[in-house]
């Protein structure tokens, strides 16, 4: 039980809690944000729409009440004024006043129409009582522009005749329709307001109509620098909606502005943010209260869980860890009244049982340990004996595992390969024993150890070369698989350094080869001198001379044969004879040999009996080699056969092998000679008795050749009755 698991459960709970807590909070937050966006969007749209609507209506109303310069009444008034000034009579004065009255009557909104001079003194008016008065605001008068009051405004126009100013034309207009306009809108909302704004071109703007909330009388003016003011924004000749501006009261408002080009007025429709956000603020209250409340609830639930589930589990876990470490005295807390309490109980009883089991186990373990130690000691002793045994062997021994890695190497091998056991154990044997054959490196795949491990075969006394410090050694390698039942554990390799023996052998062969060549020359002279003498070329020979020279000739022939045999043997031993197999017609070979031996056969009147000899029978072998073998065997049989004896040549096949048997009726081979019959220069003990000649190389040569051909040679013999030699050869290529 790893400690982090204990922490894990608490962590998992915390994670779960946060997850459960976050989901509603995030949902609520998301919903809130969407709602805020929606409400804002809705209000700005509404405000913008209202502003557009109001702009049109203001234009309509204002244009309706501002007099047209070219209307008949205005032109009449001008004419009356001209007439009065050119002829100031009471009549023309009265006409002037009545034409002003006509203007006033032409529009319901006109309260009073008057003309005053450059000093602001009324010179004519629709209302007689005004004449001579000077109540026009000086400022308005000097600006010479229409001045707006609340609920009414005064419209003025300079009256010019040519370039001469004759007076100011002034109309006082009732503005209740505009005020009504604002009031109708105000009724729709608690804070909604329409403002008409004019740029004073003196760094401030001026509200044309009375404000809804301001108690201040007169025009409200706001400096242009108050850019957060919707009133200021409204005169910038664009249509805009704003979400967070501060109006003349200092209240946060949502506003839409419009520009009325015909009047060069700005129009503001605005609504307090507080009013707009009423539905949202309710929601916000919910959020503000709900979040801490839920945090509190989660906290309480968490505390409860910790006390009743997490803590007990942690305690139980700690106890379990202690027990697992061997402290069996620990007991789980039983105070919990739920399933965990039950678990703790079960846990405690399990601990009790563990103590029992453990004590038993300890006893048994100590018994087994003692037993094991005894066995180990025995094995170790055996092993040391084995190692001592292997180490003391004169030949080099290397043992490998099933992969060819060295597991043991004896002293002799250490010396041979010039390595130390502790350095080489574990290394692949192919690296240490890097063999060569015919001068070429033996690849790992063809290494005798690989072959033994793969095919589970014994490789016996195979010769390889090995280069040690630039010196080529010759090794005779034997590899045996180490098997146990059907498993292969490794291989045991025994290496014998046969370099010296081989060198001596080779020198011997070379000597024989050279000597034989030197012998052939003189032998040829002898042979041919004899031949010439026997032919009577130097005169007829006497009987005695003829016999002597005949014997010399025979002796020469024997020596020639001996030299031939030596040469043959030397060549075989030097490996100079190449094995070149093909399908060979055995019958033809046998007939050839018989014909070679014709002279001897006829001389002794020997009968050759052929049995089962088929013309088509072939064996897969080397023609020259098999001829040599059959020649040696058949020649032996003829040589040792008595006069008029029978030699039988029998052919058969069995299991893919051809058997050639040659039987004679000769003296047979004594038992004591039989084991040595194929040895070099060996001649049977009874041979001098039968008075035949031989080199003792024939059967040795035959055996060597048969080995090269992959065949077998053997014999059966009974002294006094005769011998049967047999050879076997593969019929088909493998």
């Amino acid at each position: 039980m790893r400690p982090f698991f204990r922490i894990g459960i608490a962590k998992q709970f915390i994670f779960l809690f946060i997850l459960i807590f976050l989901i509603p909070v995030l949902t609520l937050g998301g919903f809130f944000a969407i709602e805020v966006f929606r409400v804002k969007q809705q209000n700005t749209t509404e405000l913008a729409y209202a502003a557009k609507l109001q702009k049109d209506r203001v234009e309509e109303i204002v244009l309706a009440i501002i007099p047209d310069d070219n209307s008949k009444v205005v032109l009449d008034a001008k004419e009356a004024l001209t007439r009065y000034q050119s002829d100031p009579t009471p009549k023309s004065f009265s006409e002037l006043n009545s034409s002003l009255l006509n203007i006033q009557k032409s529009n319901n909104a006109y309260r009073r129409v008057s003309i005053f001079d450059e000093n602001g003194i009324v010179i004519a008016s629709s209302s007689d009582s005004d004449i001579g008065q000077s109540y026009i605001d000086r400022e308005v008068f000097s600006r010479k522009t229409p001045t707006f009051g609340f609920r009414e405004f005064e419209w003025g126009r300079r009256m010019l005749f040519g370039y001469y100013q004759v007076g100011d034309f002034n109309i006082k207009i009732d503005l209740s329709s505009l005020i009504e306009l604002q009031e109708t809108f105000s009724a729709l909302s608690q804070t909604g307001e329409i403002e008409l704004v004019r740029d004073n071109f003196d760094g401030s703007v001026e509200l044309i109509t009375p404000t809804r909330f301001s108690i201040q009388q007169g025009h409200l003016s706001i400096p242009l620098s108050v850019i957060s003011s919707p009133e200021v924004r409204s005169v910038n000749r664009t249509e805009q909606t704003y979400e967070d501006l501060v109006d003349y009261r200092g209240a946060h408002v949502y506003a839409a502005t419009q520009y009325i080009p015909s009047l060069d007025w700005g129009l503001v429709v605005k609504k307090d943010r507080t009013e707009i956000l009423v539905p949202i603020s309710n929601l916000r209250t919910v959020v503000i209260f709900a979040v801490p409340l839920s945090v509190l609830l989660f906290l309480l639930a968490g505390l409860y869980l910790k006390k009743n589930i997490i803590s007990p589990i942690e305690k139980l876990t700690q106890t379990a860890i202690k027990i697992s470490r061997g402290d069996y005295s620990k007991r789980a807390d039983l105070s919990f009244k739920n399933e965990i309490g039950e678990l703790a109980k079960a846990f405690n009883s399990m601990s009790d049982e563990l103590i029992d089991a453990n004590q038993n186990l300890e006893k048994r373990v100590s018994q087994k340990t003692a037993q094991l130690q005894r066995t180990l000691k025995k094995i170790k002793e055996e092993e040391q004996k084995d190692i001592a045994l292997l180490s003391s062997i004169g030949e080099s021994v290397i043992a490998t595992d099933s992969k060819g890695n060295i597991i043991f190497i004896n002293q002799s091998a250490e010396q041979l390969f010039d390595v130390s056991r502790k350095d080489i154990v574990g290394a692949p044997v192919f690296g240490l024993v890097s063999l060569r054959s015919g001068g070429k490196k033996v690849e790992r795949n063809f290494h005798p150890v690989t072959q033994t491990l793969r095919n589970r075969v014994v490789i016996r006394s195979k010769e390889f070369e090995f280069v040690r410090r630039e010196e080529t050694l010759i090794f005779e390698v034997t590899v045996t698989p180490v098997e146990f039942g059907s498993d292969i554990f490794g291989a045991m390799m025994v290496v014998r350094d046969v370099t010296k023996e081989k060198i001596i052998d080779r020198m011997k062969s070379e000597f024989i080869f050279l000597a034989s060549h030197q012998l052939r020359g003189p032998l040829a002279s002898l042979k041919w001198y004899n031949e010439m003498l026997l032919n009577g070329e130097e005169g007829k020979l006497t009987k005695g001379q003829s016999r002597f020279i005949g014997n010399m000739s025979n002796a020469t022939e024997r020596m020639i044969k001996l030299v031939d045999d030596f040469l043959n043997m030397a060549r075989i031993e030097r490996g100079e004879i190449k094995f070149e197999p093909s399908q060979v017609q055995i019958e033809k070979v046998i007939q050839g040999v018989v014909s070679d031996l014709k002279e001897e056969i006829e001389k002794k009147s020997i009968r050759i009996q052929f049995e089962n000899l088929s013309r088509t029978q072939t064996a897969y072998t080397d023609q020259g080699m098999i001829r040599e073998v059959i020649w040696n065997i058949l020649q032996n049989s003829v040589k040792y056969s008595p006069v008029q004896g029978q030699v039988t040549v029998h052919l058969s096949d069995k299991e893919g092998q051809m058997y050639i048997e040659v039987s004679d009726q000769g003296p047979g081979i004594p038992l004591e000679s039989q084991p040595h019959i194929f040895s070099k220069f060996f001649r049977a003990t009874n041979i001098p008795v039968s008075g035949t000649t031989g080199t003792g190389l024939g059967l040795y040569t035959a055996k060597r050749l048969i080995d090269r051909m992959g065949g077998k040679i053997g014999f059966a013999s009974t002294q006094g009755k005769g011998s049967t030699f047999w050879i076997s050869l593969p019929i088909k290529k493998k």
Partner: protein
Amino acid sequence: MATSKTLLIIDDDEFLLDIYKHKLTKEGFAVDTAKDAEEAFELMKKNKPNLIILDLIMPGMSGFDMLEQLKATTGLSKIPVIVLTNLGQEEDRKRCLELGAKEYYVKTATSLQQIINRIKEIA
């Protein structure tokens, strides 16, 4: 049967040269003998033989090399060569025949009569 054909015999064995000379002269051939290749080539400058009998193992140039040189020399390449040697291996025989020898005999395995008969056939 009498013929004036010239044979050139190259061998370093005195006894054998004696036998060849004796026997072949008797058979009616004009016989020249040489102990080594150098001598043989010297002789052939004066007297071109009708047939050459050649040993393989000699001091100086070997019989193989001499055979090769003979076959490569204009005027000598057409002279038939019988190899008469102590080397009995199949490879040696093959090599000589490939180099252009007409016949190959191992001395100890051949009777004198056999050789004479063959010379008569070829020369």
